[in-house]
């Protein structure tokens, strides 16, 4: 029942686990000591809530990402738009009748990001460890997580960021 954007970080922040003695040579223990803030992408392609759908489609053709964080005028993360949302919009007329609910119909009429976006993105805090981020991604099939502090987007961490970091660690 909360307004979009409000309270998102509190809801999904991953709390720090209790400190236990670690084996500094074991990969999983090393990962538990690394926070996502050190591997997240800080250079992000974001979309404004008032951005037109046409511009977002154009953006998708020019960038390699599958999803885009949506920010309001206060730079707060308020949602996410991904390729599925755009495809559903473009092919709404062809979609099966059971997709023709009033919510989908409202989304089909969207002219800007705020009406089309998914309002409930999964977010984590910058202090979240690599292990916890990986657990979330594996358990719930999440491709990218938005890293948020005080509702403000600080970065994005994807599965490939995690793999890249693990690869570096293994080679050390």
């Amino acid at each position, binding site marked *: 029942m*909360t307004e979009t954007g409000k309270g998102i970080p509190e809801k999904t922040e991953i709390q720090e686990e209790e400190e236990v003695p670690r084996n500094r040579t074991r990969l999983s223990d090393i990962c538990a000591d690394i926070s996502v803030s050190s591997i997240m992408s800080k250079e992000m392609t974001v979309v404004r809530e008032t951005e037109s759908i046409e511009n977002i489609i154009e953006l998708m053709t020019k960038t390699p990402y599958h999803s885009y964080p949506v920010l309001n005028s206060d730079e707060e993360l308020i949602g996410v738009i991904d390729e599925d949302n755009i495809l559903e919009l473009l092919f709404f007329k062809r979609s099966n009748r059971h997709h*023709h609910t009033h919510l989908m119909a409202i989304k089909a009429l969207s002219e800007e990001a705020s009406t089309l976006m998914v309002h409930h993105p999964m977010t984590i805090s910058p202090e979240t460890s690599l292990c916890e981020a990986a657990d979330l991604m594996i358990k719930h099939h999440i491709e990218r997580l938005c890293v948020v502090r005080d509702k403000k987007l600080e970065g994005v961490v994807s599965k490939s960021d995690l793999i890249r970091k693990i690869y570096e660690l293994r080679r050390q």
Partner: protein
Amino acid sequence: MEALFQIMSILFLARILSEATEKTGLPGITGEMTAGFLFAIAFKPDDIETFTFMGELGAIFLLFTAGYREVHVKDLKAASLNALIPTLFQIFVAFAFGFMLGSIYGFSFIESLFLAVAFSPTSISVVVKTLIDTDYLSSKPGSLMLTSAIFDDIAGLFLLTIVISVATYNHLPSGIELLLIAGKILAFVIIMGVLGWKVFPVLFNYVQKMHAKESLFSFVILIALFSAYLSESFGLHAVIGAFFGGVLLSDLPIAKIEAVQKKVSGIAYGFFTPLFFAFIGLSVEIEVLYTAGTFAILVIVLALTGKLIGGFIGTKLVGYGSKDSLIFGIGMMPRAGVELVVIAIGKELGIISGEVFSSIVMMVFVSIIISPILLEMSIRYKEKGMKVPEQMTT
């Protein structure tokens, strides 16, 4: 074994007939209701206790998923207040027609009230396809219909809450009784609000770290069942609580992860809701319709014209032209959801007769078939200046 056979056969029939009706351009629920109806004719089952329970769970899941997947609080806030007047008018006139019909036929106060509430909801999804095909979804009456549908669902459930609470008295409640009803509803809303605001976020933060298999999915289902149970303990019906629980989870990111949504959708639309619609079909008494011919016809005519007239007047009042108002009124005619839950509850509580139940199911069928046809005709009439056939204006 009998129960197993019933559930297996009905689910199979429901899926086959749902596919067949979808192919002919009708919504799948017509096939699912027909499946239950045909099963009753073919097997004349005596003991349907287990199946009835599954049907009740189906109603709970139908409304839980409606809240969980379809309602977004932000959309409600954004919905223009302009849509409120047409919405209130179409609900009020349909409600009044239902109550009037019950009174004319000498029904008890509470049975008339159930009939009135069953007249009130609208299922916009039935005509969305027509709106798309005619390029009318983005038109003024088209978007008004969509906004109105958001208010309509909420209003339908609100009326259902009131009518079930009043049903316990079986007469027009006194001032104190009304206060007691309002108090119970308010207490339930406050408790659920606090749970949704403070407890569920913390709970789900813990649940997502659990190692037990499918914990997240289990807890989403548990919230549905818990909310349903809690509302019953407050004297409201389980479906109200389920809807409320769904709305509260709809804004909780961890509970709305795509993978969990798909599982909830699978169990709801793949198993429980087809059983609910089949249960409705199975409960139809066709022989009752022969004796109650005139009543059934009046239910169909008044339920549809109530929406048409109410929608037309309401839309005119906010400044739309006659043709757009007519299109809006027709768009509000289809029913395919909440009213079936209303009559299922009415029957379960022993308040509405087989006549009323079967007539409402007939009305739902007729509305599903004729609403898209009439809507297309009215849109064509607007576009080409074609004359409206007589029956559409009555």
